[in-house]
């Protein structure tokens, strides 16, 4: 299959071998599980249970609200002991509404919806509804509700479902292990999703540094027979950020997704391998998304592992299972080292979008004080989005947000290639994260002041109308008397 080059990108040290050869193990059931009502992009779910209530494994405990949202299910059986504001796995360290379940150790399943017997004969709507009811979100990290993405076939003509097995972040090996160990489930889930999207082809793209996963997936794909979408499994070059949705579509199909548009606009929808596996579980067994595979790695981890953890497991329980720290970590990260977020507390739960927990040593982090920009242009060369990081950062330093928006900062996907390559160690991506946040805040303020303006005009108009009516009445009354 012909591949297409993607612009920019870097070749960091991958360090995947720390965990890549460790088979997926299952975490012993933690005593308490913290299930946040919002683990996804969109609106938080509405809780359906009360404190003191017993819940069973897989039971719906919070229902998604609105179009873009996702439901939450009990990861095990137990008692709801608290519904309150608990620290979120978020770089702000702020709290968010969370359901706390004390496990009773029985791990007793609730009654699950029946399997969809022949998914390829079922309507796309039925598959979408099942995925929605199962609380599935994108497991590559962005955690966008998958059912919403499966509805793209209703409005767009799609020909390809691209399954993202690139896993281009250093250290992370959870997708690699899932493909090696559960290739059948991933490919079945992928074909079901393609059916829901009305796409005829499934292409699974895996970076060439995962030969075992490639072989395992290709072996299963070769055995696919009968009705339903076809499956091809292809290797793609090792180049960060190959796993970015838009870049993977470009590399595999040669189609470039315009800024502010979706890959669906060029006929392709992208889903992660973990998501495909979750869809398989939901459709074939009626099981909601209540667990995921997480990579625990970094030189400061005593025993790097790939672990299947119940959603809501505190990070500390997972670290204990990996025998804790070998040395004092200089940095704790949730997700990959390039796009992950700092982990501020070990009490926060692992959620549907958590792909990794990394404990990095000082040598691995290699943090150095920033110095002057020498205008070498390295950041311009590596930017996969064709932006000019050094210029954008210079504007942001001077708070010129309008100018930096015109330069396209909102097209930055925060891959961190510019920060990685910068010889002066300028935290470029931090500038862009700030600018994107500040621009979003400005837009929110703009909407609010528009609302205020409209409402105050309406208020004014009403007062004038009332005054006019009163005057008319007075005038009328006077006339009668005379």
């Amino acid at each position, binding site marked *: 299959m012909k591949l297409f080059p993607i612009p920019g990108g870097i070749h960091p040290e991958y360090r995947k071998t720390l965990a890549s050869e460790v088979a997926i193990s299952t975490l012993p059931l933690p005593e308490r599980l913290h299930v946040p009502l*919002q683990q996804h992009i969109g609106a938080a779910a509405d809780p359906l249970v009360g404190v003191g209530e017993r819940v069973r494994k897989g039971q719906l405990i919070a229902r998604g609200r609105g179009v873009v949202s996702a439901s939450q299910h009990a990861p095990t059986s137990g008692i709801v002991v608290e519904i309150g504001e608990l620290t979120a796995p*978020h770089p702000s360290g702020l709290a968010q509404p969370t359901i706390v379940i004390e496990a009773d150790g029985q791990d007793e399943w609730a009654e699950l919806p029946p399997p969809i017997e022949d998914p390829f004969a079922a309507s796309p709507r039925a598959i979408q509804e099942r995925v929605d009811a199962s609380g599935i979100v994108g497991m590559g990290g962005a955690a966008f509700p998958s059912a919403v993405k499966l509805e793209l076939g209703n409005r767009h003509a799609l020909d390809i479902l691209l399954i993202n097995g690139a896993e281009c972040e250093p250290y992370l090996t959870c997708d690699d292990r899932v493909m090696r160990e559960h290739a059948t489930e991933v490919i079945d889930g992928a074909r079901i999703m393609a059916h829901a999207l009305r796409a005829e082809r499934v292409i699974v793209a895996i970076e060439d540094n995962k030969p075992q996963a490639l072989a395992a997936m290709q072996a299963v794909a070769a055995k696919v027979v009968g009705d339903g979408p076809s499956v091809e499994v292809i290797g793609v070059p090792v180049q960060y950020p190959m796993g970015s949705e838009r870049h993977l579509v470009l590399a595999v199909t040669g189609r470039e997704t315009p800024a502010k548009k979706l890959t669906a606009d060029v006929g392709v929808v992208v889903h992660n391998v973990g998501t495909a596996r979750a869809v398989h579980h939901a459709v074939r067994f009626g099981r909601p998304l209540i667990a995921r595979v997480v990579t625990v790695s970094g030189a400061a981890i005593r025993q790097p592992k790939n672990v299947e953890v119940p959603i809501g497991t505190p990070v500390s329980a997972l670290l204990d299972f990996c025998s804790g720290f070998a040395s004092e970590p200089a940095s704790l990260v949730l997700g990959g080292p390039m796009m992950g977020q700092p982990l501020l507390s070990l009490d926060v739960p692992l959620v549907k979008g958590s792909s990794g927990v990394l404990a990095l040593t000082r040598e691995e982090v290699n943090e150095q004080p920033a110095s002057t920009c020498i205008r070498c242009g390295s950041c311009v060369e590596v930017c996969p989005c064709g932006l000019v990081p050094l210029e954008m950062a210079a504007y942001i330093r001077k708070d010129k947000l309008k100018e930096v928006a015109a330069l396209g900062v909102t097209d930055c996907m925060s891959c961190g290639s510019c920060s990685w390559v910068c010889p002066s160690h300028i935290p470029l991506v931090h500038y862009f994260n*700030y600018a994107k946040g500040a621009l979003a805040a400005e837009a929110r303020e703009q909407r609010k002041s528009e609302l205020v303006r409209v409402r105050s005009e309406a208020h004014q108009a009403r007062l004038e109308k009332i005054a006019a009516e009163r005057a008319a009445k007075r005038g009328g009354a006077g006339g009668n008397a005379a």
Partner: protein
Amino acid sequence: MMMDVGSLTAMGVVLGGVLGAAAHFLKVEENPIEAEIKEMLPGSQCGQCGFVGCAQAAAALAKGEAPVTLCPPGGRAVAEALAKKLGVTADLSAVEDPRDEYAEIAESACIGCTKCLQACSVDAIVGAAKQMHGVIPELCHGCRKCIETCPTNAIHMVEVEPTIATWHWPKPDGEAGAADSTHTHH
């Protein structure tokens, strides 16, 4: 020679006449900048500038009778934009960005007099006579008008706290010796 002088004179007379007529018939009644300034102001009629509403403030600004720093809810952004529009230099160092606040009514102290309801220019307060009143935080724009009207001092301002949905990364500290950091001091 006479032809040249004649034609140029004729052109001058005709074009002059056209311009004169245009000035007469297309005369601009109102200072156009006034409308533009009105558009730049928040339009919430909060009255914090001392004028009755934004239109009156815009008129004063257009005549140069009010400082560009007059609008508290507009903050630095509006002051800067006004200064640019009016071509004036102003000391903006004292202009603070408005704090994100909303009004809250203490249930125990509210007597249901409806004074605040009537004062609210965006109808963000709900309630009825002799019933407790409440503020809808999403609609309140923090003008504080209601506070002054309350006979029982039941209203106070609450700062809007960041949530996970609104939080964003702060601006990085300027790196030591960064290319332009030495020139950023105003």
